[in-house]
């Protein structure tokens, strides 16, 4: 099939799904909406595969194809077209996005089964997939911004999906506000680029960037920093990360799809896509790499102490995206995108398994109350372990190859990049610890009442439903989570989705085994032909194997530490808590980022708002503008009213005066 046609079809199917479900949900009984939504995304995935096949048939040097549907806006200085760019990066992204989305839709068919807003959920989810595909396929900055804002809106809708939960709506607003900050950053960055190169089309911009800007041109650095603001807000990197843990208020499939596998990696995609700009502005790239490194460390430390199951995985997501951001900012593009792909597999898997676990706990997601589910939920346990091993980077799971490739390539940049690598290795040790802390605590130890009930074949059902965060009592009608829960052990579609991802998380790394295979690297090569680092940045074989050995050793050590602390001898853990009470306090307050943002931004603005309301609003707006305008109009109308005396003779006199005046005027003139 035609390459361009299939690429457009990738976009059209999810849009069609959204519209169909959104408008026709009344006519859809039972789980029809779920199957329809899944089918739309599956069709999109098939189109993506066809696009991949068609792209591979193209000549090696002509694998960047811009397909224009129509002119979007053609006006002074801006030539925005409705165009998509089909190249190895975007094809990789559409494959990952539509593939993982299909599986998560499949999972949601059963998982969301008891919810009152079933069709609404799938309409939102399809809309999200459409937006995300638009974002990665966009062929120019204008369409990119459109997709960028759409995914933010979809994320907002899905975080506050249970719209009668106050915590959920608040989290949705927080996510939306921070994302809009990122949108503004991306927009300003685009303006800098447009001013310098005179175009918004990606390929044109990339061609012109070398001649339009000198290396580290202040305008380009400013533009790239603005683009970084966009990427950091979307990808939850320090200091714009605080929305992601709160976003866990959404249903678990949403966390799996949006806040782990796809949307939050948009920042990584953006930087990889903009690599010609960042290579021309190395200062901005370095800042990005350092902040990415800071994020991966900070998030890993917080992950050690959080006790909310979903939030632990959320912090690990932040941490893993930190690795990717560090990679793409250090010119390790294929490694960053490779990790993006493997991370999408194992993190979606982890979230799905966590969803199943939370369902078995009837909505409770506190790690302190969850334990001993190993026997009750063998399938979920298996998936959790596979995901955990991949996340920790134990060979031969996928995360092992992708993470270590990043670290080897960053180390090959030399200089101060070595420091980043050391920090990242430290964080990878912590990754193994917190991942297996979660597994050991949730699946080992004494079985909690819910687990014991499940062992006897009865799924625990809560008498009263409470908000897991605030403890508020909730009903199970629309706008709140439904009364029923579904676990993977009993639902075929959930099993298929998780099983597929478990296989992918296990073997995904085979695409890029160091010194053996480099399928992904070769596949992405056409998109990075003009890159200064893509081919030259190559660690020696010795370095690679040292890196792999360290990575594997750290993962195993981490798992061992977790085993010692949380599985074998829990007394030692309490001892730890007391000895490091200070650090524990800082970490469980998430490094006080929320408090810091509150003190630096929210409070001053709130104070300024109050000040403005009490003085500016009262005196200038109410007094001058509103009062002044109404005063003028009142005075004018009073004058006009005065003339309307009702005396006929008076009117006649005025008429006479007027006519006489006119006559005199014309006579004189």
């Amino acid at each position, binding site marked *: 099939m035609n390459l361009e046609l299939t690429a457009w079809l990738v976009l059209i199917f999810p849009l069609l799904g959204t519209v169909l479900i959104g408008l026709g949900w009344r006519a859809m009984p039972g789980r029809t909406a779920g199957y329809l939504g899944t089918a739309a995304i599956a069709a999109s995935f098939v189109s993506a595969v066809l696009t991949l096949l068609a792209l591979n048939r193209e000549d090696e040097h002509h694998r960047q194809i811009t397909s224009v549907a129509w002119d979007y806006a053609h006006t002074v200085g801006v030539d925005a077209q409705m165009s998509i760019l089909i190249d190895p990066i975007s094809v990789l992204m559409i494959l990952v996005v539509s593939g993982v989305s299909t599986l998560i839709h499949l999972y949601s068919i059963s998982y969301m089964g008891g919810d009152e807003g079933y069709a609404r959920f799938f309409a939102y989810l399809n809309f999200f997939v459409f937006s995300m595909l638009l974002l990665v396929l966009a062929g120019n900055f204008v369409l990119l911004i459109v997709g960028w804002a759409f995914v933010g809106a979809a994320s907002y809708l899905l975080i506050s999906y249970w719209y009668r939960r106050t915590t959920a709506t608040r989290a949705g607003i927080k996510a939306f506000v921070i994302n809009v900050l990122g949108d503004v950053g991306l927009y300003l960055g685009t303006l800098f680029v447009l001013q310098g190169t005179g175009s918004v089309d990606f390929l044109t911009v990339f061609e012109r960037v070398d001649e339009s800007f000198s290396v580290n041109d202040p305008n380009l650095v400013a533009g790239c920093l603005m683009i970084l603001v966009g990427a950091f807000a979307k990808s939850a990197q320090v200091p714009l990360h605080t929305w992601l843990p709160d976003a866990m208020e959404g249903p678990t499939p949403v966390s799996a799809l949006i806040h782990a596998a796809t949307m939050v990696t948009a920042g990584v995609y953006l930087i990889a896509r903009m690599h010609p700009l960042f290579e021309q502005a190395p200062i901005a790239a370095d800042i990005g790499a350092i902040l990415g490194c800071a994020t991966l460390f900070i998030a890993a430390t917080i992950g050690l102490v959080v006790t909310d199951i979903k939030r632990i995985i959320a912090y690990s997501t932040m941490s893993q995206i930190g690795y990717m951001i560090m990679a793409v900012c250090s010119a390790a593009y294929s490694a960053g995108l490779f990790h993006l792909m493997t991370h999408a597999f194992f993190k979606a898997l982890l979230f799905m398994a966590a969803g199943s676990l939370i369902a078995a706990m009837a909505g409770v997601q506190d790690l302190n109350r969850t334990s001993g589910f190993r026997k009750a939920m063998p399938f979920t346990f298996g998936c959790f372990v596979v995901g955990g091993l991949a996340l920790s980077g134990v060979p031969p799971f996928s995360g092992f190859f992708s993470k270590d490739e990043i670290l080897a390539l960053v180390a090959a940049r030399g200089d101060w990049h070595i420091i980043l690598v050391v920090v990242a290795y430290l964080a990878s040790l912590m990754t193994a610890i917190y991942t297996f802390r979660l597994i050991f605590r949730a699946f080992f130890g004494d079985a909690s009442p819910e687990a014991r009930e499940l062992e006897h074949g009865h799924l625990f059902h809560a008498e009263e439903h409470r908000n897991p965060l605030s403890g508020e009592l909730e009903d199970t009608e629309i706008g709140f989570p439904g009364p029923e829960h579904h676990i993977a052990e009993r639902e075929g579609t959930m099993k298929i989705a998780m099983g597929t991802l478990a296989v992918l998380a296990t073997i995904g790394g085979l695409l890029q085994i160091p010194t053996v295979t480099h399928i992904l690297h070769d596949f992405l090569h056409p998109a990075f032909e003009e890159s200064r680092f893509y081919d030259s940045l190559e660690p020696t074989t010795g370095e690679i194997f040292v890196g792999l050995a360290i990575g594997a050793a750290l993962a195993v050590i981490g798992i061992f530490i977790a085993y010692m602390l949380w599985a074998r001898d829990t007394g030692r853990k309490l001892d730890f808590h007391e000895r490091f009470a200070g650090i524990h306090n800082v970490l469980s307050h998430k490094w006080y980022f929320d408090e810091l943002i509150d003190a630096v931004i929210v409070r001053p603005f709130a104070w300024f708002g109050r000040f403005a309301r009490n003085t500016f609003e009262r005196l200038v707006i109410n007094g001058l503008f509103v009062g002044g305008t109404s005063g003028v109009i009142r005075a004018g109308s009073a004058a*006009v009213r005065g003339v*309307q005396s*009702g*005396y*006929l003779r008076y009117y*006649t006199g005025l008429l*006479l005066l007027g006519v006489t005046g006119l006559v005199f005027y014309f006579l004189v003139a």
Partner: protein
Amino acid sequence: MDITWYLVVSACVFSIGMAGVLTRRNPLTVLLCIELMLNAGNLALIAFARAHGNQDGHVFALIVMVVAACEVAVGLGLIVAIYRRKLPIDVDELRELQG
């Protein structure tokens, strides 16, 4: 032909009418005075037409008469209606329609 005197007569009649409209309070008289003003206009129109040997002025005068007839019909109708409702026949008293 010298039209000066025609115009003087016309102006005088117009001024008389004008003064009547401005000073009288009986609507009937006001209506009559308006008629005077209209006919003063007619006189001027016909005088100019004669002076220029052009028939357009006559046509205008005829149209003005038609309009005047209509106006008198409406005006008298109103006055009769006012009389029937026992309202004062005085233009100064009839000023409810002011803004």
